[in-house]
């Protein structure tokens, strides 16, 4: 069976004063029905731009999707007319963004924002939409939903707003939910509530979830498959257990080593990733992680290596030395 979502060789560029930034530079991956996939990376790695590109939400100018296919339920979203694309957004694909204050409309009530989605996509009449909105707020754990529907976003806490975002995202029974740093702006106890809620709802709806985050703990708790991004590319991809227990890419290994862990004894020193994040306007043809890499060799300057299998169950890695590094240090890292 074909996967629910298949992204092939996606490229997104931004024209900036300092030159062209290839924010997403040839990304390919697939998401199966009902599966939770994490996209992990740091600022500038292209994880958010990649997700927005799936929905064609890149502001043009300055941005442009220059190449690639996004096959969703058999259709290439890149080729859809705008009207049909609007049907997909918020319909078959739900979205949850990082900042619930800026992604909700401040001058519309919560209720209106939920019913609008239902009227748009499900052609629901007012009364039916209102009834369903109450039901949805209940589903996302908001007490006293009838009263909440009349409130405006500023009257709600950050956690409540994110619950409303989730209610809108699931309003039309989507097959896929894209959550871009859904809990980054929230406190840790609220983050835990929201993640549990999203996890429970996606299972219940049998929806697939793409969760974009920089938090390695969140990924470990919820994702089955992980894509690690660096400078616009996926550098390592595979089942969560493989990525965490036998990482093959030097960046993944360095990232996992650098975080202090509450479940391990304290260390004398942290082991940071050396150097600075890449300047995307000044990348050459070689591997962008090379200047910070402890394993770099001369050949790394020639070309960025392709993602190749390094282990079972679709464990892929884009490193010339992926095999030998993993074999030598994977278990220790």
């Amino acid at each position, binding site marked *: 069976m074909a996967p629910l979502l298949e992204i092939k060789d996606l490229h997104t560029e931004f024209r900036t004063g300092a030159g062209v930034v290839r924010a997403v530079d040839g990304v390919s991956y697939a998401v199966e029905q009902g599966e939770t996939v994490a996209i992990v990376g740091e600022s500038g790695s292209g994880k958010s731009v990649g997700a927005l590109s799936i929905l064609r939400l890149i502001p043009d100018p300055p941005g442009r999707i220059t190449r690639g296919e996004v096959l969703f339920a058999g259709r290439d979203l890149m080729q859809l007319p705008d009207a049909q694309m609007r049907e997909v957004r918020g319909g078959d694909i739900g979205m949850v963004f990082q900042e619930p204050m800026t992604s909700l409309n401040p001058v519309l009530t919560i209720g209106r924002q939920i019913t609008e989605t239902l009227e748009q996509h499900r052609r629901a009449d007012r009364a039916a939409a209102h009834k369903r909105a109450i039901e949805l707020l209940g589903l996302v754990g908001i007490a006293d939903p009838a009263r909440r529907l009349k409130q405006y976003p500023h009257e709600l806490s950050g956690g409540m707003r994110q619950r409303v975002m989730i209610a809108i995202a699931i309003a039309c029974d989507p097959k896929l939910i894209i959550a871009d740093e859904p809990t980054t702006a929230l*406190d840790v106890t609220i983050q*835990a509530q929201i993640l549990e809620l999203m996890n429970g709802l996606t299972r219940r709806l049998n929806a697939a979830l793409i969760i974009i985050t920089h938090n390695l703990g969140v990924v*470990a708790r919820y994702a089955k498959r992980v894509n690690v991004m660096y400078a616009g590319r996926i550098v390592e991809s595979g089942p969560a257990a493989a990525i965490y227990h036998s990482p093959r890419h030097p960046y993944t290994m360095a990232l996992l080593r650098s975080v202090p862990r509450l*479940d391990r004894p304290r260390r004398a020193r*942290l082991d940071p990733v050396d150097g600075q994040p890449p300047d995307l306007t000044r990348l050459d043809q070689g591997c962008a992680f090379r200047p910070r890499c402890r394993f770099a060799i001369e050949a790394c300057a020639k070309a960025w290596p392709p993602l190749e299998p390094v282990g079972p169950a679709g464990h892929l890695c884009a490193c010339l030395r992926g095999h030998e590094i993993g074999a030598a240090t994977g278990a220790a890292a």
Partner: protein
Amino acid sequence: MTAPATDAPTLLEVRSLRKFFPVTEGILARRLVGEVRAVDGVDFTLRRGETLGLVGESGCGKTTTGRCILLLERPTAGEILYDGVDLTRLKHKQLLALRRRIQVIFQDPYSSLNPHMKVGDIIAEPMKVHAIEPDAARRAARVRELLAICGLSPNFADRYPHEMSGGQRQRVGIARALALDPEFIICDEAVSALDVSIQAQIVNLLEDLRERFGLTYLFIAHDLSVVRHLCQRVAVMYLGRIVELADCDELFDNALHPYTRALLDAVPVPDPSVEADRRFRPVKGEVPSPINPPLGCVFHPRCPIAVESCSRIRPELREVRPGHWVACSEVR
């Protein structure tokens, strides 16, 4: 992580600190309709050479506590004894002299550096303000030295903040804090805005500086794993109060307050097999408004072990084991 200096002299003592912000209504005639109890009775001491972590979620008062110690906010009540002197009673001039010894590193290296100033001028500015290095050439030499101490090349002095990455900017913020040779630095979420791969670099730098210059830190943060790595003692705040305070290892191994336990439970561990084995139930509800905090124990509406009396009686911090303080009536 160095051995806690248990016998070191006390550098800072905060006593019954309170900071309330007025809440007003109306445009022309502003009426007082309430107050935000940002900090509501906080006590702790900090020994020379020690790093104390102040943790909690947004709105718990940890940043306001730090700002009160810096006298960026005037406390509503309470004493802040620094080296035996109550900062809240000092005149402006005396305060200025003391400020040389107390510095701060802010969270956001993007908004805490003036974008119109060159890095060299940013770092030199405290020296100008306090008139301690009037000679321009020597000041420039000191700036180069500070850049090197913070792991930056001396030619960064001629750059502007926007030409640097977040991690480099935070190093500039640290160099500025060091410019006056302080003994005490308040780190207010100093690594929170940084990427994971850069965070560890800055944590290591802060540790190096602590050893090299014998610094005392108040480390305000919400990231528990970073706090555990860096601090010798930790105070957990909730809704303007300290609910638990203990040595770092004791706090993380034997957390007693239900809020501390909830906080520790909520942090996901970056390991799928550990996470798969964890049974985990997030704490219910949200932090109540500090304008109208719950009576009794402020945590009782969310607390899994609350009893009837928790909604009436405010628990005081008690020492339940040597050095381990908890504000909970149900903890024995």
